[in-house]
């Protein structure tokens, strides 16, 4: 049986107990996007500010389990200061790390209301966990398929925010 230590790595518990970038940003100028996991009732709100093609600031709010909250925290730390293109690459890489199983579970059926924005990540993409830094700590989640939605919730929500920003659409509710 897969052990809990594969899921609850120390980095994950640390980000859960002391989340980075938790809070809100004034929107506008930031984008505010909500994501839901209807299975468990978890919700996340991502505030992302894009300036000159760079993710100049990011915050997240909402409530959820240790996996969804730590994933949001790790994500915020990873994309802050990156260009939008780099952030999109990271979303793609992260979702690929989760995607083999996610595809099997039926991607797109998550009803998050957000996400699928970068739906071009497919199974078969090889991921080098080294390139993900601390995010690699979430690798163990794929061994617990029902928790993958928890880990990808904030990433899908951020992808939606970046899509909205690019299209110049009003804030998603």
């Amino acid at each position, binding site marked *: *049986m897969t*052990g*809990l230590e594969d*899921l*609850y790595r120390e980095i994950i*518990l640390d980000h*859960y107990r002391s989340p980075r970038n938790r809070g809100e940003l004034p929107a506008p100028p930031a984008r505010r996007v909500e994501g839901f996991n209807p*299975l*468990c*009732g*978890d*919700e996340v709100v991502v505030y992302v500010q894009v300036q000159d093609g760079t993710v100049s600031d990011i915050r997240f709010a909402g*409530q*959820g*389990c*240790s*996996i969804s909250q730590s994933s949001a925290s790790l994500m915020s730390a990873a994309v802050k200061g990156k260009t939008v293109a780099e952030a999109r690459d990271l979303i793609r890489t992260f979702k690929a790390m989760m995607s083999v199983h996610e595809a099997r579970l039926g991607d797109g059926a998550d009803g998050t209301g957000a996400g699928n924005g970068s739906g071009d990540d497919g199974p078969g993409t090889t991921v080098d966990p080294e390139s993900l830094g601390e995010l690699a700590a979430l690798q163990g989640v794929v061994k*617990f398929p029902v*928790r993958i939605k*928890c880990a990808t919730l904030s990433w899908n929500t951020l992808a939606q925010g970046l899509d909205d920003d690019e299209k110049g659409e009003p804030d998603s509710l």
Partner: protein
Amino acid sequence: MPWTVYYQTTHANVHRGVYTFAEEADRLYDASRVAVGRFIGAPDPEHEVIFTKNATESVNLVAATWGRANLGRGDVVLLTDMEHHANIVPWLMLAEERGVELRWVGLDEEYRLDLSDLERLLDGVKLVACTTMSNVLGTITPFADIAEAAHRAGAVVLADGAQSVPHLPTDVGGLGCDFLAFSAHKMLGPTGIGVLWGRRELLEEMPPFMGGGGMIRDVRHDGFTPNELPWKFEAGTPPIAEAVGLGAAVSYLQAVGLDAVHAHEVELTAYALSTFEERFGSDLKIFGPSGTSERGGVLSLAFRDVHPHDLAQVLDQAGVCVRAGHHCAKPLMRRMGVTATARASFYLYNDESDVDVLADAIAEAGTLFA
């Protein structure tokens, strides 16, 4: 096993063939209907027990047939704050479709129904749809009292028995309901089959639910004549093996005795409540009535600030299966001020050692997320 016998020895459709296998299928299917009817004290099991997909479909059947025939703009349906989505959304759909008004019975501080205002709430109500036991809180509702008051006010009464029928002796006459919905999978039976019991006079008057084979007496180019009860409400090939399986589950439960099942659960719940109090005190919140006479053996837990998903994950590693989430009762969860709980539920196969394993696993979650 009776349902494997069905697949091994007949696997024929019902109410069609004249060959031996088909007759045997008819016999098994019809016998289950009668067994299920007797299990709930139905006065006329052969006509009043409708097999559905689950309790959800049973409620939808009533909403789509009795509801559409009897409810229009401004008519009132009375629900409670502790209903499962299965007994909320079909009525919300009617509200959207034809302007039916929904009213809600609230809860007191121990998550029992607050019936202090019932007479006023019942004024002008055409249907009361209420659970007999909350699937989240375990609260046993005073259903017979509610039904009596509802009938005095001229309303028809639907009981959502999905949680109570498996755990308490059920008698539709004693409950005083006009409809009773429940599911087989919560009472040792298969998935994919549920029951709607209804008073014969009401069922006779109701239009059919789904159209197709089996539910008709005659079909012409310009119309159709519905079949008699209960087939009027059973369009298409029914879940035959599942019905036979439910019949077997019912026979088993009757042999054990529902009084014995309930007494066992009361004892186990009392043991769990005292164990939890002793080991976790105020760190472990249990929603619902504190007295075991007012509740069944479902315990919705909130442990410190450990998220129910995380709690359930740790419990799973200890071999304890609990549901974590909103339990298909989001209006109730909002009332409770949480997005989710972890819910442990007991049945006749559990004993005190299971409670001990559960308590140990909760303690382990406490260490991991300290």
